[in-house]
């Protein structure tokens, strides 16, 4: 689109399109809560074209019967953008972003308890000359703290409509709706060039903020408040880390304990459906595709939905109440040692359930390099999909006996595998820190917002969003890959008079047998090599594949219990240990790689990830195998 036809396009929009309202404000100003309040569940979450920054759009009809579109722009401290998020906000609001409609009205959301910080952005945006409304949000909290703001006077000083809103309260958005109705019909205004913002130095803007504040508010700054008292405990050098550790332990406990019943239910449901199809359909390709390819494949991923939801339940609560930045504060120094930011803590924590939500959560890291390193090491955290494999091998090879009187040897081995993942993740992060250049310290500049009670409605909407994202991924990419792997494992079929299980003769089987040449030095037999091929889709699929290879017909619990004696009998201990080491590192998860590709917008990083993880896995397995052989003997 050339510059010359812009006025024409703008004129057309003026008459035809539904007015676009842009919500803009500092991070932590309650903007998203206000967005949820206005749009309810009528929102579309996608990415801005070409980048992985979340784009949230919704719609609503005002009491006056006017339709509006609402865009929730990423939080920004200033329009002189320092982060990719802020660049998006700047470009969209100034009408410079390709593929985005310039907004007709800018609703600037400010935290009424913190005008000193928030008003600076308002003054900046005002220079763009767009129609604006100021939403004085959280006025309830401000009133409780004894902060009085003369909204009328503020409106005069700023030259724009000022409304008081309480985003977390039903009806708290009414004033804003009324103000938008009053602006109808809207004339689209072309934004001033961005250089208008820089025309005034920051110092002068701040002076103006101080002047306005003195005129409209009794807000004397820096009184201690409740948040500070909480921080005395939460950020305490000794108590802080203890509280963090206890919280994390509880989250873990919940993810693994609470998720079990719904996971079993999903698993039984999918298995039951499979059994039903099996019973009611003639044996053949279609049945195999439905039962083993689709139900077995997608079902094995779907089963993680409860864990992901429980994990995000806690993350969203901790985020909503303001604890997460504190956790990042406490861990910043520790993680800074290996070149990570304290903010990397959440993505890495999430990755213990599943690397997919973990990598998605890395979006909260603003520095692109920090974010990339966090994404690259996330799959080294022991995700729950490794547990079935670990459990199988540990049960078969590690004797159930007590160590030092109270610890179980099996439990210790499992713990060691977790530690191995964490330690290697730190080592890889350190390596990336050294190689990706950037020896310089990265700025932190992390806001520690006031504590708030978490809000149920926002929590529910947040969880619903995660659920939708996960389900659509299961339904598209993951399902496709699963069907592909099913095809590889099923074709060509076994010849007449076959002595081996059918998978032996399939493409996957041929691949596996060819791979045995590569895997023999690390102690894998052809059965394991074959199982690793379908196991590429998702780690736990390898258990089922081993069952297929050893020609067992059971599934689930029964399979694991009947597989245990077989592998205990037919594998040597070094082979088993080698396979455990393999699973600590190997990138055996298509979903993770496809998410990395999506989040980094390039093929380079998923390939790099697969490459370095396979290399680590091979080296670790080789060493484990050889050392174990030396001690145990073949």
């Amino acid at each position, binding site marked *: 689109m050339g510059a010359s036809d812009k006025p024409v396009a703008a004129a057309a929009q003026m008459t035809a399109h539904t007015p676009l309202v842009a919500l803009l404000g500092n991070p932590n100003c309650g903007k998203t809560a206000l967005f949820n309040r206005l749009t309810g569940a009528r929102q579309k979450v996608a990415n801005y074209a070409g980048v992985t920054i979340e784009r949230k759009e919704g719609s609503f009809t005002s009491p006056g019967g006017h339709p509006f579109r609402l865009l929730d722009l990423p939080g920004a*401290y*200033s329009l*002189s953008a*320092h982060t990719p998020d802020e660049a998006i906000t700047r470009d969209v609001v100034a009408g410079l972003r390709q593929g985005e409609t310039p907004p007709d009205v800018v609703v600037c959301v400010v935290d009424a*308890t*913190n005008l*000193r*910080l928030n008003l*600076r952005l308002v003054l900046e945006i005002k220079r763009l000359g767009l129609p604006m409304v100021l939403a004085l949000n959280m006025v309830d909290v401000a009133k409780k703290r004894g902060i009085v703001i003369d909204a009328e006077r503020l409106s005069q000083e700023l030259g724009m409509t000022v409304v008081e809103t309480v985003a977390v309260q039903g009806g708290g958005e009414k004033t804003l709706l009324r103000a938008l109705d009053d602006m109808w019909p809207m004339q689209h205004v072309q934004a001033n060039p961005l250089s208008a913002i820089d025309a005034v130095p*920051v*110092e002068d803007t*701040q*002076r103006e903020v*101080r002047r306005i504040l003195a005129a409209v508010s009794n*807000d004397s*700054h*820096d009184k201690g408040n409740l*948040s*500070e008292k909480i*921080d005395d405990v939460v*950020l305490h*050098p000794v108590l802080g*880390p203890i509280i963090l550790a206890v919280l994390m332990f509880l989250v873990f406990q919940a993810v693994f304990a609470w998720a079990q019943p719904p996971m079993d239910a999903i698993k039984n449901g999918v298995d039951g459906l499979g059994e039903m199809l099996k019973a009611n359909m003639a044996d053949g390709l279609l049945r195999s595709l439905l039962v083993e390819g689709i139900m077995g494949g997608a079902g094995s991923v779907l089963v993680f939905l409860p864990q992901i939801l429980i994990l995000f339940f806690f993350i969203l609560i901790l985020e909503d109440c303001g604890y997460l*930045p504190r956790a*990042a*504060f*406490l861990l*910043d*120094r520790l993680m*800074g040692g290996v070149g990570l930011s*304290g903010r990397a803590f959440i993505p890495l924590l999430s990755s213990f359930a599943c690397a997919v939500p973990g990598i998605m959560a890395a979006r909260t890291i603003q520095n692109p390099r920090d974010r990339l390193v966090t994404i690259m090491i996330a799959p080294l955290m022991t995700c729950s999909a490794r547990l079935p494999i670990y459990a199988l091998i540990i049960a078969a090879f590690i004797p159930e006996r007590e160590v030092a009187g109270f610890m179980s040897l099996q439990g210790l081995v499992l713990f060691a595998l977790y530690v191995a993942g964490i330690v290697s993740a730190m080592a890889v992060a350190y390596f990336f820190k050294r190689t990706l250049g950037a020896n*310089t*310290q*990265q*700025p*932190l*500049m*992390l*806001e*520690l*917002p006031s504590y708030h009670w978490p809000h149920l409605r926002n929590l529910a909407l947040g969880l619903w969003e995660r659920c939708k994202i996960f389900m659509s991924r299961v339904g598209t990419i993951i399902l496709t890959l699963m069907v592909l792997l099913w095809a590889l494992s099923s074709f060509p079929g076994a010849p007449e008079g076959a002595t081996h299980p059918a998978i032996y003769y399939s493409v996957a089987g041929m691949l596996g047998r060819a791979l045995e040449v590569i895997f023999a030095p690390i102690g894998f037999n052809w059965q394991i090599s074959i199982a690793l091929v379908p196991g590429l889709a998702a780690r736990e699929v390898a258990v089922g594949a081993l069952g297929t290879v050893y020609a067992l017909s059971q599934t689930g619990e029964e399979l694991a219990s009947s597989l245990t004696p077989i592998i205990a009998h037919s594998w040597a201990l070094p082979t088993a240990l080698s396979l455990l080491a393999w699973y600590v590192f190997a990138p055996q998860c298509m979903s993770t790689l496809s998410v990395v590709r999506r989040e980094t917008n390039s093929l380079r990083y998923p390939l790099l990830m697969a490459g370095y993880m396979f290399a680590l896995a091979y080296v670790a397995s080789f060493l484990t195998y050889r050392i174990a052989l030396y001690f145990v003997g073949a």
Partner: protein
Amino acid sequence: MTHAAPLIKLDTLATGSRGTVVHVAPGDAAHGADLARRLMELGFVPGEKIRVLKRGMPGGEPLAIKVGNSTFALRRFEAALISIQPE
């Protein structure tokens, strides 16, 4: 400098102490020249009152600093860009 209380860098201000921002130095090029500008946009503008709330462990880093009504966590090198008149 014959001031009674000479200017100090924010990273050397004791935990719990107050001060007033006097000057924000531009960071070196490696951090991006606009580090100072961003600090000012966050509220570290000459004339604003600040207070050191907490320090992280180990190494007294990062620092939790109250400026106006907001609290920001800064790493030591960021805080060192800000000159303070202690109270």
